[in-house]
């Protein structure tokens, strides 16, 4: 059976391996190029802005232009980081949906082996194929992200999926798709619905689960306005680090460990905040807004995931995806024993 499962996917797998090798080479060449250009631009003589001689000026200008051009290209390359997940969905579609549609499952399931054995053989082979492609690709991407992100994978607006997390998401996608295939029974619909479900689940993990599985950091943000000799001075205090991922910014009750306010709390605070912002005495003393808010036990905060938590978060996310995949795999084995074909 292993041989037949391999034979079914042989051509596809070899083509994907070839494409993966090409992609890995492109990533390495691009990463090395970007690193070298960035090094020239940031740590070289171009940094000072006084380029000196005309040839040097031209050189720095060229470096800058090439870097900008590569950054455009890198957006496409970054988009290809979803490749292991797409591959997993294609393999997952092949596992059940494709065989059900072509009715070959009737041939396979009437040979002298149980459905569970058939499933475990095909799944193991497809998992091996996925890992052979996803592991080198994911780790090349990790290295490449580091090169193009100038060392920081954490941005205020998003996090990069990185390292083994990409592999874990791909395994989750493989299992989820194979289960969906038994339900949907049409490869094209299975592919489309699996893609949507994996994206929604990843989005849910990113926005709703991630802030709950790593320690969050909070910084008070505010402004202090002073007027000296008729001149208004505005002093900002508190700032979220640029290499951190913002999970909340807004007003929260001044209670220790208040955490992220839920929607209901946010709405109830809105009136108080609006009142403080519309105080008639603000013209006389702009600091009255802050005083008003502190009287109401409110503060403006930024809550974020620090860069130092990144790998911990990736590890916990990976465990989460693999746990869900494990549960879905068990459901899958239960389900195919009852599948009517």
């Amino acid at each position, binding site marked *: 059976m*292993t041989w*037949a499962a391999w034979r*079914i996917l042989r051509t596809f797998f070899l083509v994907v391996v070839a494409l993966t090798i090409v992609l890995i080479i492109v990533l390495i060449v691009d990463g090395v190029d970007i690193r070298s250009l960035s090094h020239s631009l940031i740590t070289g003589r171009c940094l000072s802005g006084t380029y000196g001689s005309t040839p040097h000026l031209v050189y720095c200008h060229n470096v800058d232009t090439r870097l900008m051009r590569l950054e455009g290209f890198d957006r496409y390359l970054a988009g290809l980081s979803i490749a292991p997940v797409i591959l997993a969905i294609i393999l997952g579609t092949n596992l059940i949906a494709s065989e059900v549609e072509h*009715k*070959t499952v*009737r*041939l396979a399931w*009437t040979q002298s082996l149980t459905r569970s054995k058939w499933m475990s053989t095909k799944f193991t082979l497809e998992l091996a194929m996925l890992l052979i492609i996803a592991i080198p690709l994911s780790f090349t991407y990790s290295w490449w992200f580091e090169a193009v992100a100038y060392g920081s994978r954490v941005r205020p607006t998003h996090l990069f999926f990185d390292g083994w997390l990409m592999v874990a998401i791909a395994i989750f996608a493989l299992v989820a798709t194979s289960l969906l295939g038994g339900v949907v029974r049409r490869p094209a619909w299975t592919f489309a619905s699996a893609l949507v479900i994996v994206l929604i689940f990843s989005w849910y993990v990113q926005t709703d689960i991630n802030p709950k599985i790593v320690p969050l950091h909070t910084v008070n943000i505010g402004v202090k306005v002073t007027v000296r000799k008729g001149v208004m001075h505005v002093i900002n205090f508190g700032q979220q680090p640029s290499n951190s991922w913002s999970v909340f910014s807004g007003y929260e009750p001044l209670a220790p460990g208040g955490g992220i306010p839920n929607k209901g709390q946010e709405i109830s605070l809105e009136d108080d905040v609006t009142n403080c912002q519309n105080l008639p005495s603000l013209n006389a003393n702009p600091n009255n807004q802050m005083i008003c808010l502190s009287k109401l036990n409110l503060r403006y905060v930024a809550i974020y995931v620090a860069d130092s938590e990144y790998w911990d978060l990736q590890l916990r996310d990976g465990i989460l995806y693999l746990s869900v995949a494990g549960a879905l795999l068990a459901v899958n084995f239960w389900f195919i024993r009852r599948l009517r074909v």
Partner: protein
Amino acid sequence: MSEWVLQADSLSKRFGRKWALRDCTVSIPQGKVVALVGPNGAGKSTLLRLAAGLSQPTSGTIEVLGHDPHKSNEDLLRRIGYLDQERPLYRGFRVRELFRFGADANPGWDMQAAHLYVDQLGISLNDRVNSLSGGQQAQVALTMCLAKKPELLILDEPAAALDPVAREDLLRLLMRQVSDNGSSVILSTHALSDVESICDYLVILSHSRIALCDDVDFIVESHRFLSDPTSSNSRLPDGTTIMDTRISGRGVTHLVKMDLPIVDDSWQISEPTLDEIILAYLRQGVRNGLLDHVETPVNTRVLP
């Protein structure tokens, strides 16, 4: 070891609101070549799929070679060969590769026999499945079943859409398997000539129910044409059930099922062919819609 290759008790299968099989109770003995006959949509393929373990009954039970086929029992799977109506094969495989798959998946696989079968049919082992004609694909699919050396072959319309020569080849191949290995065969078919030529047991399915199930010789022996050329109102002998009636002029001819030997000289008695009996049951199934009424006593039947 069970004396029955297939036993179904009140077996029913429903797809959504539609019943594909209803209250089927049937027992098929070992060592028979069984024809499963019925119009399209009668539930033949559903019954065979249930027997092959590809589907689960909605209610009732089915046992094949003494096992519940849906439990995906490896021992049972080894003992049955199933040919689906749509002859699913891995289209990108070569014939040789299909056989390799068969050998990997079946401990009792007879590679020599598989090579011999396709060689006799003029199919090369290097041919790709998708380059074969429909008939050749059917032959390869049947070879996949036969090379398993199963005790029971479950074949869903194995000869459908084959030209006469291919049909003859396929049936010959099948009969050789039966004689060489003593396999039992359950095959569904629309070709009544196949039933007469190779089958010794008959199951008629109509409107999702079993209309008739018995040994072919017994079926022929237990049915008679009764003709009365002078009147269409003559009283029928006791122990007979009308299965079909033809009226011509003033006379009438009934096909009846006999529970007792007929000793009534007022009727002209003749033996029907198997085809005529099958057609009568199928026609009656169509007329009645439901086969609850197939064996309605003569006195209560109103004939056209």
